């Protein structure tokens, strides 16, 4: 019951965004524009999938954007200075990203350090290492096929990278809402101790989630570099908060136990098209931030109001 309500509201908001943006600019409703806007959302979209699950368990991963940047730099270095094929370098970097995520996982599960603290530290550390390794300079000159992947489109219309996002989103949705693993995620989010006593492998689940988050960050780093044609250590600055905003906007509760991939994806879409429309209307980036912030507040407030009402009725 309560799940149904939130997605409904989100869909309405998305439609509202479309309507308003189309008034602000004739260009907005062009299919080519909409699809191109989605290209820019792919990295964020991919990272929201494991982030949703992590927040459902009551945790958080503040290191995703830094991980993305680090993976992107590592890929660049492996390609440029070690001479490995760019695609393989990308996969290697993604695996290293997974490793970085696994480090988070180990500190959180084996040492029981609160996720916000661990990922706060690794956020600084990974970004710092990326900056140090690259000496603040970017790595460019990637092969055309690679850049084409990030910048080109199928049939000249649908960006290639979107397909990756769609596939990951679908798999993520199935896992979270229909699989045994997903059940474990929700159980942990509601009551970690109770989950343990009901034989849920709590530590293993959490470790997997943070490693996956790192893997997705690494993958996103690869896509990011393909898209802009460079590896930069300041890639996606502040990106972790954007991802979290999308997830929270999408209805996932920051305290855990509630959330779904569809909602998070709608959250990503809302933010993306909002920004795209405002861009077309020549509204400066600064104001865009303000508007996204206000949308977040309104969404959260309405969820809480809906939530309390549903709770009262349920009792």
């Amino acid at each position, binding site marked *: 019951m309560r799940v149904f309500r939130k997605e409904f509201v989100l869909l309405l908001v998305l439609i509202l965004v479309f309507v308003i943006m189309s008034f602000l600019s004739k260009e907005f409703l062009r299919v080519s524009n909409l699809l191109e806007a989605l290209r820019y959302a792919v990295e964020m979209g991919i990272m929201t999938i494991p982030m949703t699950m992590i927040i459902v368990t009551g945790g958080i991963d503040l290191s995703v954007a830094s991980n993305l940047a680090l993976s992107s730099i590592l890929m660049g270095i492996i390609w440029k200075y070690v001479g490995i094929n760019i695609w393989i370098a990308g996969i290697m970097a993604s695996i290293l990203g997974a490793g970085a995520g696994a480090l988070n996982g180990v500190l959180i599960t084996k040492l029981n350090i609160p996720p916000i603290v661990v990922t706060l530290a690794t956020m600084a550390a990974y970004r710092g290492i990326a900056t140090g390794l690259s000496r603040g300079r970017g790595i460019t000159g990637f092969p055309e096929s690679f850049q084409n992947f990030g910048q080109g489109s199928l049939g000249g219309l649908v960006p290639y990278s979107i397909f990756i996002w769609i596939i990951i989103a679908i798999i993520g949705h199935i896992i979270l809402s*229909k699989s045994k693993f997903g059940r474990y995620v929700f159980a942990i989010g*509601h009551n970690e*101790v109770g989950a343990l*006593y*009901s034989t849920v492998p709590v530590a293993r689940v959490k470790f997997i989630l943070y490693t996956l988050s790192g893997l997705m960050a690494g993958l996103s780093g690869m896509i990011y570099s393909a898209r802009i044609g460079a590896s930069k250590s300041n890639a996606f600055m502040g990106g972790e908060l954007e991802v979290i905003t999308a997830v929270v906007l999408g209805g996932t509760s920051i305290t855990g136990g509630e959330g779904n991939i569809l909602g998070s994806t709608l959250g990503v879409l809302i933010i993306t098209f909002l920004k795209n429309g405002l861009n077309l209307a020549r509204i400066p980036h600064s104001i865009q931030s303000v508007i996204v912030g206000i949308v977040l507040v309104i969404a959260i407030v309405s969820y809480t109001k809906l939530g309390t009402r549903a709770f009262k009725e349920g009792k």
Partner: protein
Amino acid sequence: MENILELFQISKSFPGVQALKDVDFFLRKGEVHALVGENGAGKSTLVKIIMGVHQPDSGKIVLEGKEVKIHDPNHARSLGISAIHQELAVFPDLTVLENLFIGWQPGKFGFVNWKRMREMAETKMKEVGINLPLDEEVGNLSTAQQELVQILRALLQNSKIIIMDEPTASLTADETKVLFSTVRRLKNHGVSVIYISHRLEEVFEIADNVTILRDGVKVLDKAVKDITPSELIENMIGRKLETYYPPKKAKPGEVMLEVKGISFDGILKNISFKAHKGEILGISGLLGSGRSTLAKIIFGILKPDDGSIYLEGKEVKINDPMKASMLGIAYIPEDRHRQGLILPETVRFNISLPNLPVIPRKVLVDIAKEKELSQEMVRRLDIRTPSVEFLTMNLSGGNQQKVVLAKWILRNSKILIMDEPTHGIDVGAKNAIYHLMVNLAEQGRTIIFISSELPELLGMCDRILVMRKGEIVGVFNRGEFSEDRILALAAGFAEKEAVGGAGG
């Protein structure tokens, strides 16, 4: 003796339920008055009205001869009414001294006068004979001490009425003795105590008068010396309780579980015993004797420093609860809400959670099968719930416990360790649990029954192990049961009994 508090014709309803109907309640000065009744009888609603948490729909409250309306807990406190809570209302990170005065610290202009606080505390402690380390973080104290902090706080606020709701739930026998002598001292100081407990033996030990509630209505109030235990129970549940402890026909068979030389972190020392198929093995002992720790080790939550575990003769390594459940071991935990269930989820979710690895499925959870199986469990265990989609947090304590049991019965567990399974459950539901236990044992399963309530161990078990400070100090077979000897061993007054009986 005059009445300090009188409640006349109090009624209170909530959406969908009439919690109290025309209830009268009279509390005399300096008396200990027990309030008993099954879960849902209205005890906590009545007490919340006295504490100002709820307002009655009708009826009047008279305090020391004057009619009053109690607006909120602060107001109640200023009127001299305090409560000690089950979910301890203390601040674990703050010191004892600070805990005593939180919310009403002496001092002017928003400043806190620590010196005055310390003086007041020390004076009161001497006066009442309670001794607490003022500068220790309350989180480091035992549960019993934390309750004493709350009592001391109430006394410092010059409370004339103290409400105690299940105060001995987490106390050892020694600590309970201290609590009771404190309560008696309170009586001598003219303080009245409203005492709520499911442990009826306590009612007979400490209370002067008892009021029985049933289904929101007052059934009886009498002096404790004028009532018998069976009369008390019958009035609580409204019918005669024939077989309180169901008889068990089957005799224990071969050895199912053997524990050898288990030691853990100073809490357990060289524990060895055997448990048989079809046996209900009781483990008696006071809090701190290590019983729950032992259970957690067998269930894989903790890893022992030393020792081994054998199932049907073969040694096993139990790394985590998942492995334990694969081996057929189940644990029904002490803390139903925190350890036993995922409260914000449905009955179906909870019952299936530990069974997910074995409910036949392709890759994803087979919801239809899940529903079918959980509905079957609801039927078999007679769980009172509108449907399996009902949230477990809305069930009564007894039904919640049945859901916990259902998880493991569905799992077909061969060994069920039950840790205080009837804790905080009303008499009727207790009986249902006892029947279930006998049922399971007769099917050949092994039940390890951990309990602080000696009567139920004596009534239900084939054998009883007595633990004290991490060791097994005695074993009793059914014919040899003796309350006094078991208690004496548990408390350490007698020498260790021959432990040869541990093998059965």
